[in-house]
């Protein structure tokens, strides 16, 4: 199958169109329990998607800016189709760690990473792996909504798609843009003005536009780096509801400095301090009976 012509998971995906390695393998490790497909999923026709579940595992991840080590050897799993939150005080390295998962960290001059980051069984830092493919497989939503300022709403969502879809498949482009906007919960609000500028939307809408843009290329994992920190509470709520729906199709990692948000949205939470992973576990355990005293001090607000 040519790399540019993969089927959209929103459509019915006959089993035999999936490559053998895309079917969930029964031999996954104990920490990867694919969430059972939820009935009545929001995005139309999404029941076939839950067949594909992807987990991420960090093994001994270290990240450097020049000679300064910001992430100091982290082993962490992000279970498939679940939301994992990363919390910790400013400067603890959570954003840096997350940016290693889609290999954006190395874009900074002088920055590098060591260790393994496994997407299912594939180490994305393997020299044979194409970093650009990794970035399509692992999407990212940034702290400040950043739609491309010179593009319309439609063009923003289509931006990633246009890189791989030729002009002959305009129809498919429109279909996928619509699916992505529906998946981001934005379709009803913008369907009438797809050609108006992306930056003309409100902050919360812009961020959902960025989510749609990331969803359009059909990633397996979505990284969200403090996606709501620039938004008002109502917009934040909408996005948290969105995350709840999205996790049925993709694995989500969310960095947040807002502990209440982590409590609301995440299945599992990891606490980081000065570049190290202190503790990870189910969210309510972390917040009600943490095993590490540092975790307890942080979640009760004694510092940070």
């Amino acid at each position, binding site marked *: 199958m*040519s*790399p540019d012509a993969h089927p959209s998971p929103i459509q019915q995906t006959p089993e035999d169109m999936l*490559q053998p*390695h895309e079917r969930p393998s029964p031999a996954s490790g104990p920490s990867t329990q694919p969430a059972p497909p939820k009935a009545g999923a929001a995005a139309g026709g999404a029941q076939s998607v839950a067949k594909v579940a992807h987990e991420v595992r960090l093994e001994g991840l270290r990240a450097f800016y020049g000679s300064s080590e910001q992430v100091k050897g982290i082993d962490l799993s992000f279970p498939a189709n679940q939301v994992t939150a990363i919390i910790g005080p400013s400067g603890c390295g959570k954003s840096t760690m997350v940016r290693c998962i889609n290999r954006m960290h190395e874009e900074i001059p002088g920055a590098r990473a060591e260790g393994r980051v496994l997407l*299912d*069984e594939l180490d994305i830092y*393997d020299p044979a792996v194409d970093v650009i*493919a990794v970035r399509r497989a692992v999407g990212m939503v940034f702290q400040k909504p950043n739609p491309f300022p010179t593009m319309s709403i439609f063009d923003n969502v289509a931006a990633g798609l246009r890189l*791989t879809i030729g002009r002959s498949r305009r129809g498919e482009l429109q279909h996928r843009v619509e699916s992505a906007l529906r998946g981001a919960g934005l379709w009803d609000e913008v369907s009438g003005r797809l050609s108006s500028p992306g930056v003309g939307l409100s902050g919360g809408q812009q961020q959902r536009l960025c989510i749609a843009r990331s969803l359009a290329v059909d990633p397996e994992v979505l990284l969200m780096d403090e996606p709501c920190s620039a938004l008002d509470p109502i917009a934040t709520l909408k996005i948290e509801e969105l995350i709840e729906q999205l996790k049925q199709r993709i694995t989500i990692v969310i960095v947040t400095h807002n502990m209440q948000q982590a409590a609301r949205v995440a299945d599992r939470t990891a606490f980081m301090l000065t570049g190290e992973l202190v503790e990870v576990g189910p969210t309510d355990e972390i917040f009600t009976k943490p095993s590490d005293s540092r975790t307890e001090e942080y979640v009760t607000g004694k510092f940070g």
Partner: protein
Amino acid sequence: MSEDRLARFAVSPRRRRADRLARGVLLAATLVALVPLVLIVYYLLVKGLGAWSWNFFTTDPTGSTFFGGSSIGGIKSAILGTLEMVALASAIAIPIGVGVALWLVEYGQPAWFANTVRFFVDVLTGVPSIVFGLFIYIALIIGTGSTYAGYKGSLALSLLMLPVVIRSAEVILQLVPGALRESALALGAPRWKVIFRVVLPTALTGMLTGILLAVARAAGETAPLLFTAGHTNQTSLNLGSFMNSLPYQIYNDVTSPTTEVVNRAWGAALTLVAMILILNLIARLVARRSRLA
């Protein structure tokens, strides 16, 4: 194979080719941009060094252009003329330019007046250099009925330098932190002391860079001098009389049929470019030591 795992996300060969092609084209364009510089420097060195000699720097051009035969002389008067005229031009343009920039940054009231001044400085920036010469010609040659003079050339050059000095001084002065001014004022210092003892010294190295670049520009200009300073072959220390200059001398010699004269032009060009490059170098070194920009 584990790499096929991401097969559906992989970059098609077409995109990869486009990326490589684009990078190649951009690199090639950058190299193309540098080719003229390399060629100019090469030619200046090859043809200019040949003309350099002790005589070259210490004798005036004789103005003779006969084939072979009598000596054509050197460029002494041109070098001295340029030095004199640029010095005077700088002495005029720098204080006025820094003064206007100071006014814009430290006072600048009323706002409509400041904006008008800025607009006119903008206008000055875009004026072709020959028009500056014509301005001075109208004012000081037609206006007074007199003739060419070195100081008139200097005035034309100072008009040319003015917007550059004002602009760069303004940028640097704006970078001086307001907190610095305020702490000086809070100590009870009068405004003029704050400006001369605090603001200007802090901004000095930064402004020096812009000033040196303005001087370098003025040294290389020909057009403003065409109808203001006149042309002569003798060295003159009197800025009130006709005065030679390097750019003018080169311009004169370019059209000569005599090879030696053209060679002299190359030698003079090398001298001029060397002077300008030295000024540029000093400007860059000074910029590195600036505490602001």
